[in-house]
């Protein structure tokens, strides 16, 4: 799925507007979302056509992905269901190495003949491009797993829940917001199911069934007299879970300032919308922040985005090497700094790990899109930059013998490349709650939820807003603030991390549409953390009059 397509689809229901979405998937009937059109044995037969064809044409390696990508989006505003879209995209992507060079081709003709032709095209492209190749591709070895399968451990498949029940939930969310003072509310539910079959000439046949869900809303309060308007977004996270995420569970709620609840593995959407409407109204008369240095207390649903931008992206190896120079940029976290073994990315308590295995996370899969079994590894250990993110053709650059298992393509018709795994901040080891953290701060600001974000092309200088801001004075919450954004430098910021709450406060933030590459592909990734304190951060006031 492509981010721009999604934005168009979410807001519009008419065919004319749907036309640019041809790469995204065809609308299908609700029942079709529960089909599995091909048996695993049939997929294996088709995959072998690609692998055998590639080998017969002289390819030294080939992999094939048979992918069926199902999406359902429901969007509403106030008391209206605006759009229900069921889409399906089904096809095959074949990647080969011939003459030491990658080639890729895809087709939605899911027959032996269609696959054979696509494979021939992939080999031809590899051979044609080999004249541009400076050095042949070097692939890290991977184990042959034989025939295996993996499924997101969901309790309730969201696609099996009646669409009317899901639309009703969103309308109840909207009603709760309007009842509590919202002027406007829009709510959305996104459900994704990737049915992916991977096979390669290394001898693996991997069948995976992957599920993701994202319930969200935006509440707005407007004072027509003053002309002011304020927004409060949902404090949910997109998750690698089923519909069970939408079953409220008090054990998964955490108390936060201003009467807010924050949510771990279960989300109470109606409750959050009720609080959101009250907070949006409160924002209309909240105090504008005094610019200056503050100690920031950042909860996970906010801090996740800061981790994503200031640690996730700069430690991608392709970016470090310059492959993204013309678009997203390069990285301050160079190979020299990595190899020095003493680059102080953060303070001693900062331990940041990469993984594609955390239960409930968006990145969790059994195997990546080049058939590598997923794992966990360290990126920052006791503050020191210790590793990067690499796939099979990059591992040798790091002097490693195996891939990190973080290769991904957004669809069968896009070529897979290195994508950010979950990148998470390990919780503190000593018992410490967010309430205690607030008590220990003299002059600070507590931020919940994501807001505006911007970072330079080498990931030094960033500016972040948030969803809700509270002033902390002498260990007490002293009321809501407006117009807050903080600016810092990545290394300075992480070295000013002085305290991290314990594992009871640990939870996941998610980014559903992380973009990378030209042409751009999206992927979904989670970032875990516990509430953390950063001292002496520069806060600016963003209030302006036009």
């Amino acid at each position, binding site marked *: 799925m492509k981010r721009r397509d999604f934005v168009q689809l979410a807001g519009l*229901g*008419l*065919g*004319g*507007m*749907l*036309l*640019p979405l*041809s*790469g995204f998937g*065809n*609308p299908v*009937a609700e029942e079709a979302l529960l089909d599995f059109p091909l048996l695993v044995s049939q997929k294996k037969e088709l995959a072998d056509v690609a692998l055998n064809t590639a080998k017969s044409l002289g390819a030294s390696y080939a992999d094939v992905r048979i992918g069926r990508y199902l999406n359902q989006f429901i969007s509403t505003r106030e008391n209206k*269901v*605006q759009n*229900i879209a069921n889409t399906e995209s089904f096809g095959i992507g074949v990647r080969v190495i011939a003459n030491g060079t990658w080639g*890729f081709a895809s087709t939605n003709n899911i027959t032996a003949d269609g696959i054979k032709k696509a494979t021939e095209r992939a080999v031809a492209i590899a051979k044609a491009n080999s004249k*541009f*190749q*400076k050095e042949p591709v070097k692939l890290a070895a991977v184990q042959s797993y034989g025939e295996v399968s993996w499924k997101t451990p969901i309790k309730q498949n969201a696609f099996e829940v009646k669409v009317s029940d899901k*639309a009703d939930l969103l309308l109840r969310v909207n009603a709760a917001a309007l009842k509590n003072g919202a*002027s406007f509310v829009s709510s959305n539910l996104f459900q994704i199911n990737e049915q992916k079959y991977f096979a390669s000439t290394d001898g693996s046949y991997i069948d995976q069934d992957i599920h993701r869900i994202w319930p969200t809303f935006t509440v707005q309060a*407007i004072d*027509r*007299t003053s*002309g*002011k*308007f304020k927004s409060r977004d949902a404090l949910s996270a997109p998750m690698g879970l089923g519909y069970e995420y939408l079953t409220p569970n008090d054990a998964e709620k955490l108390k936060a300032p201003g009467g807010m609840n924050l949510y771990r593995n279960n989300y109470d959407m109606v409750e959050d919308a009720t609080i959101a409407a009250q907070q949006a109204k409160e924002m209309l008369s909240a105090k504008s922040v005094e610019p200056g240095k503050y100690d920031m207390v950042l909860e996970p649903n906010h801090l996740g985005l800061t981790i994503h931008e200031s640690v996730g992206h700069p430690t991608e190896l392709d970016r470090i*090497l*310059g*492959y993204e*120079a*013309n*678009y997203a*940029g*390069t990285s*301050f976290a160079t190979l020299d700094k990595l190899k020095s073994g003493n680059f102080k990315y953060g303070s001693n308590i900062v331990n940041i790990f990469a993984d594609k295995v955390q239960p409930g996370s968006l990145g969790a899969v059994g195997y990546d899109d080049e058939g590598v079994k997923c794992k966990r590894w360290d990126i920052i250990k006791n503050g020191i930059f210790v590793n990067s993110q690499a796939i099979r053709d990059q591992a040798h650059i790091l002097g490693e013998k195996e891939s990190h298992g973080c290769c991904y393509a957004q669809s069968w018709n896009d*070529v897979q490349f290195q994508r950010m795994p979950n990148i998470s901040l390990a919780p503190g080891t000593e018992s410490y709650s967010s309430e205690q953290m607030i008590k220990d701060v003299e002059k600070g600001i507590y931020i919940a939820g994501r807001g*505006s*974000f*911007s*970072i*330079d*092309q*080498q990931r030094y*200088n960033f*500016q972040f*807003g948030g969803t809700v801001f509270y002033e902390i004075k002498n260990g007490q919450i002293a009321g809501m603030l407006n*117009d807050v*954004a903080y*600016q810092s*430098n990545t290394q300075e910021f992480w070295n000013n991390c002085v305290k991290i709450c314990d594992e009871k406060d640990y939870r996941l933030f998610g980014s559903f549409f992380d973009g990378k590459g*030209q*042409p751009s592909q999206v992927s979904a990734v989670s970032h875990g953390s516990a509430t953390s304190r950063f001292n002496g951060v520069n806060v*600016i006031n*963003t*209030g*302006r*009059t*036009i």
Partner: protein
Amino acid sequence: MPILTKDEAYALLKKVISYSKADECEVNIGGGDSANIRYARNSVSTSGVISQNSLVISSAYGKKVGTATINEFDDASLEKVVRRSEELAQLAPENPEFVSFLGPQTYQEAKNFVPATAAITPKMRADLVAQSLQVAKEGKAVAAGFLEDSVGYSAMMNSKGLFAYNTATGTNFSVTVRTEDGKGSGYATRGYNDITKLDTKTATQIATQKATSSVTAKAIEPGKYTVILEPAAAAVLLERIIFGLDARTADEGRSFLSKPGGATRLGEKMVDERVNIYSDPWNADLPTSPWTGDGRPQEKTMWIEKGVVKNLTYSRYWAEKKGVKATPFPDGIIMEGGTKSLEELIKGTKKGVLVTRLWYIRDVDPQSLLLTGLTRDGTFYIENGKIQYPIKNFRFNESPVIMLNNLEELGKVERTVSVESNANYLLPPMKIRDFTFTSLSDAV
């Protein structure tokens, strides 16, 4: 399937409409070929060719609407997709905002198809990239770039007798050149309907020149500066005003165009009186489609005239509710400029900062349209009419509305591309006073 001619598209759409049993239906069809080459570290990294065609049909029973898509065009498939959209419409909840499809319209002939672009060969594409790589190698610099071109058609018809057809071509090119030591970086971007206008060699020379001249950047204090924004830098700020022209959001009180008391800024002077912004599908340098996806004709429209907000964009639903003309969202935006070149603007500047590119633009406050982002790939200090030295990149926090009130001077208009939205514009370089830089960045 090849690109359909107007007659072929008409015949196909007529057939689809003939299968319909719904109260009303509307069919859009479109497709074409696009190709791209991506390179980095002075070597091609990926290339791709994408051919696609698809047909979308919306069927309506009263206010219940269903939509289905297909990319097979035999009779059985076409009939199947019509039935599928009708089944979905029967199951859909009523959409109170559905407006009956538009009747027949008259469209002016479009100018956005250039045969030379449609005739591009893989060799021409490879040569364009090779020329760019050659410049970088000769300059002992490292290039990363992206070239894409496309040719396509679109057509629509509905049960009320509307028929529209258009073909279009386009190419976008961008290149980032970095010095081998990574201390300097430059950028250039170009967009055209006619690929014969694309000169990747000159564009890469400009990027290389910016890269080499931005080495040894000095840090100067953040604060308010007079800036000269090259068109590519101005584009990413200005387009946020255009994206925010929706009348409904303004009427609902949740836009920078909303006013205290419930009114909007439509008809009011919002920016400097030298600001004139319009769209014109028949402009020779920025031709765009003469109709929108829902069949509305695109017309030459003034959006800001002498600093006054002249028009807002409307969905057909909101226009009907408000009893006004349903002005659609524009395709190409043009801002009038002056007669001076960029060099002349620099020459007339006592103290200032030349900004060649802005990056990672995000909304900070929708109420004031405050945006943040950074300078990138070549920022220079100007004193006494001359570029004195390269400076380190800045983060800015500024609203394009405030910026256009602080207008000093406009230069000659040129076509440019937004790195944020990929949209093409005709814009002048702009000299702006009191542009707000809030912090320094070490990024190169």
